[in-house]
């Protein structure tokens, strides 16, 4: 399994054609206390870069974009009850959705962990 990152601070764990998507620790730290998360339903078709989910902090609403194109297989229902999971475990239990990739070639444009770390350090 490999983990990729986007400049919009999403992470994506890829296992063959299946992937899990969430936001990074840096992103949750920037957003602050998460009070609401809206995840896509199974079957939703997502286009790379399109709106995929919404996360709301005390202060503001932010869009989560699809890092790759594909079909959602599962949204993380746990976030509905406990949106603060995004703060407490952003890169684990606080995942947003699972997706079947339609074009694994899209992964090539994403960053690996080291590249993302360097990207964040430069912000």
């Amino acid at each position, binding site marked *: 399994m490999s983990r990729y990152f986007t400049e919009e601070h999403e992470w994506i764990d890829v296992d063959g054609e299946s992937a899990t998507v969430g936001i990074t620790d840096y992103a949750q730290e920037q957003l*602050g*206390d998460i*009070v*609401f998360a*809206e995840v896509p339903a199974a079957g939703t078709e997502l286009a790379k870069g399109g709106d995929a989910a*919404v996360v*709301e*902090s*005390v*202060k*503001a*609403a932010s869009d989560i974009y699809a890092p790759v194109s594909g079909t959602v297989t599962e949204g993380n229902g746990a976030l*509905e009850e406990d*949106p603060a999971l995004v703060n407490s475990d952003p890169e684990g239990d606080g995942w947003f959705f699972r997706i079947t990739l339609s074009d694994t070639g899209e992964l090539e444009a994403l960053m690996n962990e080291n590249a993302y770390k360097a990207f964040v350090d430069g912000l």
Partner: protein
Amino acid sequence: MSDESKNLKLPLDGWHRKKGARIVPFAGYQMPIQYEGIMAEHLWTREQAGLFDVSHMGQLQLTGEGAAEALEKIVPGDISALKPGKMRYSLLLAEDGGVLDDMIITNTGKNLYIVVNGAVKHDDIAFMRAHLPGDITLDHMESAALLALQGPKAAEALARIGVEPVQDGWPVPGDLFFMEAGPFLWNGVPLGVSRSGYTGEDGFEISVPAEHVNALADALAEQDEVKPIGLGARDSLRMEAGLPLYGHDLDPGVDPVEGNASFAISKARREEGGFHGSERILKALADGPARKLVGFSIDGKMPVREGAPIYDSDDEVGRVTSGGFGPSVGAPIAMGYVESSLTGEGTILEAEVRGRRVPMTVTKMPFIPHRYHRRGKAK
């Protein structure tokens, strides 16, 4: 946030950064939006005491014989009846009765001390100078900082740092009741302290010469009850307290009656009129306004925010002007304007958020009961 540099720095700028604040542009200043997190800071203020830097706000002094009477042409409050040491919430009114700002006016005994919103302070000053007689002096106290210490432990914390009366036998800040103010000394530094604030909690606002604000902030923050609190929690606290934020819930397009601020129109002024827009405002008082600012409790967890249109089935009947998550309420809350026929408590309407309808119920404000230290209700 990229042109942060265009914004002015507060006297406490370095202090905020040292305390780990995240800084954002607000009202032309670089201001701390949060330190450890909005939720924790909000709850801390409701349980302990929060220290807010509100030095971006305009501190003004109106001096001269007849200042109160002159001011009454442009505000609807009974300022000439305000006794020394007392303060009042009021509104700066445009010629047509629209709200140019909200403000707190204190009779210091020597002059009127007025605190106005930071974002519009320069407009307020220009407007007041244009509408007040030339023999009334308006001084913008640009070398004064303003701190707010808010929360149930605020009085205890303030008492511990040793604020003294300016004369023996005069009261100390803890002797003040809600909406009272006085001059005090702290290590020889003159302070203007009032028992007031914008969180719904007991607390104080402290005007201090800017060169002493670092030391005062340190002395207060050293108290176990006190933590620095950012703008983010200030906003959620005032929203839960049902207090309007100028530029959002009040603006020049609304009059005080529409803005749910009829309480700021004093009885004597209702009888005599004679202030900007008094004809329109007194008519709205008598007949009821066409629309009004109300509070909403929200079903579910999804926040409804400023700008969301409000519907009564298919009809658009208003707009949300403030909204977000209320940490002490434990649910989203909002304020907005709707047609008067729909302002009854319990009326169920819908807001539109991202193309979906969210049910919300007109609710009496405040959302969290005020806990002011009112005269006659001492603990």
